[in-house]
């Protein structure tokens, strides 16, 4: 592989690795979502440095120019990452829906409970009393 391309590949994947690690360190990125990023960065870095492995891999797949194999693998990782995020977004959507429903039902119960249920109202009063006692002192 030509030196210039190798330098570019090593720099880019090294940078990616560092950025991901830094984001995790600052708690801007959860470990759960960082794992796939770290895996891809490590693999790309290893392939960029270890030329023999990359050219062997390229020959097995049938790619004449080894750096193209690197791009292909990077593309594969991007696809997997995107799918991973779509799954994550779907799960969040579902969780958000359930939360919204719970809030709506709890709010309704609260409105009704205060108005109708005497036992509930007494408890509400008690809570209010406890909460307000420090101020009255």
């Amino acid at each position, binding site marked *: 592989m030509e030196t210039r391309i190798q330098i570019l590949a090593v720099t880019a994947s090294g940078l990616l690795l560092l950025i991901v690690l830094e984001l995790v360190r600052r708690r801007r990125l959860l470990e759960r979502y960082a794992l796939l990023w770290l895996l891809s960065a490590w693999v790309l870095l290893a392939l960029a440095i270890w030329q023999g492995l990359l050219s062997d891999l390229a020959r097995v797949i049938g790619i004449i120019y080894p750096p193209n194999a690197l791009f292909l693998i990077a593309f594969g990782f991007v696809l997997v990452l995107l799918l991973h995020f779509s799954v994550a977004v779907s799960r969040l*959507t579902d969780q958000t*829906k359930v939360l*919204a*429903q719970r*809030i709506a039902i709890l709010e*309704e119960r609260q409105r009704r409970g205060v108005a109708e249920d005497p036992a509930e109202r007494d408890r509400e009063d008690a809570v209010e009393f406890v909460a307000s006692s420090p101020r009255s002192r």
Partner: protein
Amino acid sequence: MGEVVRSLHTHVPDFDVLVIDDGSTDGTKDVATAAGAKTLRMPFNLGIGGAVQAGFVYALENGYDYVLQFDADGQHIANEIAPLRAAMADDPSLDMVCGSRFLSAEHGYPAPISRRTGIHLFAFLLSRITGQRVSDPTSGFRLYNRRGIALFARDYPHDYPEVEAVVMLHFHRLRMREVPVTMRTRGNGRSSIGSGKSIYYMVKVLLAIFIGVARRRPTPEPGDEAPVAAAPNL
């Protein structure tokens, strides 16, 4: 909408009316409360599936035996609830009774041809899948019993849920029936399905039907009846 709530109070006085305000900005909740309905106010717009499911969860948790799903835009007529209730009372094994616009001879429900084509396509597919005639799969005028409520409180499709709900019901081995009703064209409020969205609607519902068929066997939940049970007296 206050009118719809009042007509429900008149025609089905033994039902509590619960209005679901799906994050609207037009004061739906206040109008409904003023008309004497209970309200569930969604903190933001969930889409019809999530909003309707909130109603099922509410009914399940508050121990209601039946849920009637009824559009607030004036499309459904409170007069027509009686046949739904009669059908449910006739056959206690029914878990859902659905009001259909297309069963009565003189229906002539005025819908744009594109919408009707879609409805008939879904009707054809659902009839094949469930092995019974389903004439109006997009109707949201439905009466559910406790089992129907429990199923949909646990799992209800996200958007455009009516068609998919029929598939779910079938594969959970719950039973449904349609009864003929008349419906008005929408009084006020736009349909949730604009013309631009109708293609998305078609594709989404078709996908949902096929996924629903692929899902087929419901996952047993803790406390459910076992999918395979030994006969008591072998």
